[in-house]
């Protein structure tokens, strides 16, 4: 069975991760906003079903199963309020480690479809893909560290935040290019106006670029380093017409075991996966497949109207 987890719009009203005193990296933003969204939906279902007040409602009351896909929580759309041209819609797709690369073509289309459905739109402006195991630091370049002394210090909350990706090593350029072909196709279909990659240094870029048909318009770099981005990279990006953007995401956005905990029957779990030998809840191994993050910004005013995540996993009966 496929599990589709959604945070809904985390910007306003509903679940909000920035309720927390410290602002966390995307992995914590993802997990805590998933938890909050589940809680809100559980409560909603409880309040409409007085009999269930005493105990936690069955997950069936606030999730929806369509064939072999379970939507957690039940799918609600949240269409944007203004016309398409008012927005800058950015989607970042995180391919996860240890997932067969040949699934990515289907996964990418699926992710875009979910986001477009959520926002009620037909296309996106920028699709950034994050390959597992790459982190910008690891890309060994000459950085002008002598600049560092005068730089503003980064608050502790922006530090790693459990981001370290020990699960995987970067894949080779060839594999990335295979994936890129899928993105180029989406670009050709006008579903995506611009493509982007994340954490690429000069070396990786210079191997990657000559083999692309559609060049990446964007290279996203972790914000922690934004004031010490190596000059060679800045120059190279300028020359190639690639915009260097900042981000604050973890490469390893969904560490192993996280979903099992969120969905599990423990005190902090959503009560979807069965614990020790009980009941109607689902059994099996949860294998996260991919995560997608989306933001819709009203261009003229710089207002973020919608932001959220979908995480998709396979539940394999063990």
């Amino acid at each position, binding site marked *: 069975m496929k599990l589709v987890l959604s945070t809904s719009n985390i910007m*306003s*009203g509903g679940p909000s991760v920035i309720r927390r005193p410290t602002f966390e990296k995307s992995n914590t933003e993802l997990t805590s906003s998933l938890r909050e969204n589940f809680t809100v939906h559980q409560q909603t279902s409880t309040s409409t079903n007085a009999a269930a007040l005493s105990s936690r409602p069955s997950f069936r009351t606030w999730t929806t199963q369509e064939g072999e896909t379970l939507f957690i*929580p039940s799918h609600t759309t949240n269409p944007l*309020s203004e016309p398409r041209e008012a927005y800058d819609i950015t989607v970042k797709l995180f391919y996860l480690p240890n997932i067969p690369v040949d699934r990515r073509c289907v996964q990418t289309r699926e992710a875009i479809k979910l986001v477009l459905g959520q926002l009620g739109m037909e296309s996106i402006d920028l699709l950034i893909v994050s390959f597992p195991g790459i982190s910008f630091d690891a890309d060994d370049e000459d950085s002008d560290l002598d600049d560092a002394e005068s730089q503003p210090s980064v608050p502790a909350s922006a530090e790693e935040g459990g981001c370290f990706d020990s699960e995987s090593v970067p894949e080779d350029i060839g594999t990335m290019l295979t994936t890129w072909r899928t993105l180029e196709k989406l670009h050709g279909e006008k579903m995506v106006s611009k493509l982007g990659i994340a954490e690429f240094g000069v070396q990786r870029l210079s191997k990657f670029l000559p083999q692309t048909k559609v060049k990446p318009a964007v290279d996203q770099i972790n914000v922690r380093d934004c004031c010490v981005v190596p000059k060679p990279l800045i120059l190279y990006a300028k020359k190639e017409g690639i915009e260097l953007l*900042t981000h604050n995401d973890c490469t390893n956005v969904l560490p192993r075991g996280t979903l099992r905990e969120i969905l599990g029957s423990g005190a902090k779990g959503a009560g979807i996966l069965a614990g020790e030998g009980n009941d109607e809840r689902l059994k099996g191994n949860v294998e996260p497949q991919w995560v997608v993050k989306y933001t819709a910004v009203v261009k003229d005013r710089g207002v973020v109207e919608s932001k959220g995540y979908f995480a998709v996993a396979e539940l394999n009966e063990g």
Partner: protein
Amino acid sequence: MARSEYPITLTTFPRLGTDDCTTPSYPVSGQKLRSQFVPDEIANPHIRFPTLAANIRARRGRKVEVNVPVFRDENTPWPWKDPSVDYGLHKWPEDDDVRNGAAKENYIYMDAMAFGMGSCCLQITFQAKNIEEGRKMYDQLSPLGPILLALTAATPIYKGFLADTDVRWNQISRAVDDRTPEELGEKPLANDRWRLPKSRYASNSTYISQDPRLRKEYLDPDLVVDQDLKRRLLDGGMDDLLATHFAHLFIRDPIVVFAEDLETLDLSKADHFENLQSTNWQHMRFKPPPPGSDMGWRVEFRPMEIQITDFENAAFSIFIVLITRAILSFDLNFYIPIQRVSENMETAHIRDAVSTQKFYFRKNPFSSRPTHRGANNTPNGTFDSPASTTSNSRPPSPFGPVEDEFELMTINEVINGQVSSDGDAFPGLIPLVESYLNSMNVDVETRCELARYLDLIRKRADGTYWTAAKWIREYVKKHPKYGKDSVVGEEIEFDLLKAAEQITRMEGRDGLGWEMLGKRR
């Protein structure tokens, strides 16, 4: 500009009102200002300005009284009597003011509009997408006013004396206070319509947004409004909150009206309204579009003090811009009772308030209602339609007592966030802005520049860097000519202004002013 001139941005000229403080020199005690400290020539000669000053004085029935507590240093005589006050002048009737007690013990005394309106500040005007957004920004920025006033403090000297306050606000307030003795409550009401608790230059007294989060407890039940005028606005179709706002502005008289504007009433213009609006100096201003323009609704954020360097002024300007973007994106809620905002404004004046005082501030800026906007409104072409649930119509959380919504916080807590384990802490304005930026596509160079700006504000708030007020105090204190007697003499002033010039040029790169700016390159 002459070779010997250089533009600097200090809030006030430190020895304004001392002998011979202008170049060229003019005699004081002129017919228009009737000030014993500043000459008439200091005011803009356009007829509007001397008339403004004269009419304020006429309405008050005496000169304005700007009394600032003097800073008591080791050698400051105590009780302190402002030695620059001349009690023996008999040129104008207003010269009696000081003999009638206008100058107070332990206060620096000033007597002209120039001492207030001669100040410089940093005001930011925002364009709203429509009137609703304008009203929301007006309300949400209001509680931030006193915080930013304290954080930008830059005014420790008046008329050549160290003051015991750090900001300009109340001095301007008093310098244009046109209230009559009846309005001030010094005499029983006979001719005037009401008692007025505030000067026409003062902090906001009401909120205007039609926001379900605006509780009636946040409004001032004793707000003075012109009820007849409010009735007319309501009858004309204006909603109650906005009618209240404008009827509050109209409790003041227009101070200057040009006779020719009264000959015919031209309803295609808003001059009479603008005249009143622009002489109601509150810390926020709600600006309707001028007739016949496509300018839109604007909101002006007015409390901040000007900083010495362009870098700092850019930092604070951009910080406020980013806060408005975060307010709109996260739908933030900073409401506290408006009277607490006024109290905060007073607190902001206290010397070194930024590191010693606490301010009322809302603990949870997030909305608790799950508002799934537009749910069910599934357009075509969406994901292959799993049964959409109905929208979440959870009843709104019942409101708790208003007093539980806010508490006293330090500036550092407001800006950088409260440290707390229970998750109930205020996240801090900078973390909110950072979180907003993390949701945006920002290029590395811009983000780096923004990081420098935010770093300045973060460190001003946590005390790592000094406010200009503190820096100027320390500069005076360390000056060899300073006699620890609160007096800022001419040589100290000269050196201080030269230092300000150097800081303006170098922005701390040569080390001067590093206490304010950090070590910059």
